[in-house]
């Protein structure tokens, strides 16, 4: 069944999936549909972020002062341990966990097993990236940008390519080319972000409807950026300062190359 043609049913199923009350066979069937249909995946991610808001809505209660004392003692003890030993997180983990709206999986905290997360399949995904990169460079030669200094293929969690982004340094613009069939839900926009290492995500612009698009960009905006991402946002996008507010649907390495 093409759930995206039944929006109310899709929303209700996505809401109960993300709530956690959709269980057993119904849950597995929904996950299968989510793997096949980006619109189903997007609905599930949106509801996961809606429900996560519940953790913010509980009435505050001041904790006893002793709690901070215990935390401070443990932190002081932690300081004695070399940092590498206390936090053996490989650097790849950073973008492995990138698409996880719920954020906690990288820490082993995926309590309700967000099975529809937009996680990149690291091993297979890396190989696929390298293979497709070769073909991509050939394709790029015909695309238009002789001096395209950077390129990224943005993919969803199944490593399916959705968008090709290149930077044309001479024209000072990003060229976007849609290669997948992702349909943006009504009343929403896709927004492109640069994700600098250790800095805030910065908006590069909101995607238009067409298959190709040019966004003005200064070289400084796209230098030293390891990753690009696309999030699902309210219609027209959100201000850059606040960062993405919706789920991240597509991510890709932003790779420098020479013409």
């Amino acid at each position, binding site marked *: 069944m093409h759930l995206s043609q039944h929006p109310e049913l899709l*929303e*209700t199923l996505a*809401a*109960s999936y993300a*709530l*956690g*009350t959709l*269980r057993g066979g119904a849950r597995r069937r929904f996950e299968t549909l989510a793997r096949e249909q980006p619109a189903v995946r997007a609905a599930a991610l949106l509801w996961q*972020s*809606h*429900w*996560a*808001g*519940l*953790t*913010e*809505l*509980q*009435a*505050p*209660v*001041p*904790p*006893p002062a002793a*709690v*901070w004392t215990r*935390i*401070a003692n*443990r*932190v002081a003890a*932690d*300081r004695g341990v070399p940092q590498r030993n*206390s936090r053996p*997180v490989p650097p790849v*983990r*950073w973008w492995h*966990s*990138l698409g*996880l*709206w*719920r*954020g*906690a999986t*990288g*820490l082993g*905290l995926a*309590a*309700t097993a967000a099975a529809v997360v937009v996680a990149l399949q690291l091993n297979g995904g890396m190989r696929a990236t390298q293979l497709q990169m070769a073909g991509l460079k050939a394709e790029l030669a015909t695309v238009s940008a002789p001096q395209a200094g950077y390129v990224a293929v943005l993919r969803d969690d199944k490593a399916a390519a959705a968008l090709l982004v290149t930077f044309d340094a001479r024209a000072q613009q990003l060229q976007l080319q849609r290669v997948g069939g992702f349909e943006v839900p009504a009343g929403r926009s896709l927004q492109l972000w640069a*994700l600098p290492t*250790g*800095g*805030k*995500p910065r908006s590069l612009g909101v995607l238009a409807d067409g298959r190709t698009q040019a966004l003005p960009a200064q070289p400084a905006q796209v230098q030293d950026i390891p990753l690009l*991402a696309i999030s699902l946002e*309210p219609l027209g996008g959100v201000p850059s*300062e*606040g*960062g993405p*507010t919706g789920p*991240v649907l597509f991510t890709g390495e932003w790779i420098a190359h020479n013409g």
Partner: protein
Amino acid sequence: MPLPTSDAELVALIDRVALRDEAALRALYDCTAPRLFGLALRLLRRHDAAEDVLQESYLTVWRAAADYRASLSPPLAWLGLIVRSRALDALRRHASSRADRTQELDDSLGHTLEGDTPDPMDAADASEQAAALHQCLSRLELRQREVLSLAYLRDLSHSELAQQMALPLGTVKTWIRRGLVQLRGCMARYV
């Protein structure tokens, strides 16, 4: 009670914690601990267990703050998910050792439906998306809101909810179904 802190200020504090800045951890704690302790209490219903979870949660923040940026989520939601996850771990440990203990963690769940408790929801310093959820949830009947909140916060199935809240299974299913339909319509307008 600390003043509401903007998302940008919280993000700046988390960034400093990632650089092993203990003063930033203290400042983050001062801004967010009452909110997160309220959440832990709601999940666990017992002060000592909630204090333990709060302590573990801030230690997790201390060790994993560098991963925050990658989560791309609002800061309070990220912190809330850490507390929820730690609290669910505690509930599972409790469940597996229940043979020699009473069900004190579950005791008061049934009371949440009696209707004499004031609405515990508070969106004073919530992120935009949580504020929308708050608006939509507040249009539901209290009992529907309670069932949905507990289903999510405590990761409970229909039958677990029925058991813990001492309600017929059919009633729980009906409240959740109706609550979801109403929420769906409301959130579609807000988001």
